[in-house]
C-alpha cells in the first residue's frame, strides 16, 4: 500500500478521485482483514463500505505527521471491524453457509473453511483481532499495539489467550 503525498493531500481536501485511488490501493488489505474478522462475505462488504465512508467523512482528523494514510485507514478498519463484531450478539449460521456456497470454487477445502468460520465465530473478537494481525498478517507486536491502541503486554496476553482458546476449540472439535 503506497499512497503518494499528492494523493493523500487531495484526499484530505475532499477530492473523490483521490478517494478512488486510495480505495484501489488499500482495498485488498482492508477487505481481506474484514473478511477474516467476520468470516462472512456479505458482512465484509457492508463493513468495508462503512469503513471507507467513515474514512472519507473523518479525513480532516488525519494527521500526516503521525502516520501514513494507509496505516491510518488500516487502524480505522481494525477498530471498526472490532466494534461491529462486539455489537453483534450472535452470528447467523445459515448466512455463513450461504456465503461459503457463494464462493464455491475459490476455496479448495470447503470443510476446512467452514470449520475455520465456525471457530472464528467462537473466539473473543479482541483475541481474534490480535491473532489475525500477528499470525495471518505477520505484523509485529509494536505495530499491533499501535493499531489497536493497547500496550504490547496486552497484545502478547491476548495472542496467548486467543491461541489457548483455539487449541481448546480444536480439541473439542476432534472429540466430536
Amino acid at each position: 500500500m503506497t499512497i503518494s503525498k499528492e494523493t493523500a493531500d487531495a484526499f484530505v481536501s475532499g477530492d473523490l478521485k483521490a478517494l478512488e485511488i486510495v480505495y484501489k490501493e488499500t482495498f485488498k488489505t482492508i477487505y481481506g482483514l474484514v473478511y477474516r474478522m467476520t468470516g462472512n462475505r456479505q458482512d465484509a462488504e457492508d463493513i468495508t463500505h462503512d469503513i471507507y465512508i467513515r474514512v472519507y467523512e473523518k479525513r480532516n482528523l488525519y494527521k500526516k505527521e503521525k502516520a501514513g494514510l494507509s496505516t491510518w485507514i488500516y487502524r480505522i478498519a481494525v477498530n471498526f471491524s472490532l466494534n461491529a463484531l462486539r455489537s453483534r450478539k450472535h452470528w447467523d449460521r445459515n448466512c455463513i453457509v450461504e456465503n461459503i456456497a457463494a464462493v464455491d470454487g475459490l476455496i479448495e477445502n470447503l470443510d476446512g473453511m467452514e470449520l475455520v468460520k465456525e471457530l472464528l465465530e467462537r473466539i473473543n473478537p479482541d483475541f481474534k483481532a490480535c491473532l489475525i494481525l500477528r499470525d495471518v498478517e505477520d505484523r509485529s507486536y509494536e505495530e499491533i499495539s499501535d493499531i489497536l491502541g493497547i500496550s504490547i503486554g496486552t497484545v502478547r496476553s491476548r495472542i496467548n489467550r486467543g491461541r489457548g482458546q483455539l487449541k481448546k476449540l480444536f480439541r473439542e472439535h476432534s472429540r466430536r
Partner: protein
Amino acid sequence: MDYGKFIRILKDVPFNAGSEKRIWNKISHTLDKRKSNVFFLTDIWPRLLISTAVLAAVFVILFINYEKQLGARNFVQHIFTTEYIYETCKYDGQWN
C-alpha cells in the same frame, strides 16, 4: 485441523474480484446521496440548532398561554416593564 492449517486457510482467504467494483459503486452512491441531501439532514449541529429552536418556540407558546390565563393584556410588555421585574424580584423577607 491444527493451528497451522487454521492460519493457512485464513491466509488464503478467497478474494472475489467483483466485490471491489461492487463496494466502490456503493460507496460513490452513498457519498453522492449525502452530497445531494440538504446539509441539515446529515450534519449533527444544524439538527441540534433546529431542535433547540423548536423547543424554545414550544416554551414561548406555553408561556403566552400561561400569561393569558393570568389576564395580562400584553404579555411581552408586561414581562419587560420595570414594575413586573420589581414585583417579581423584590425581596420582602421572602422571595416572590
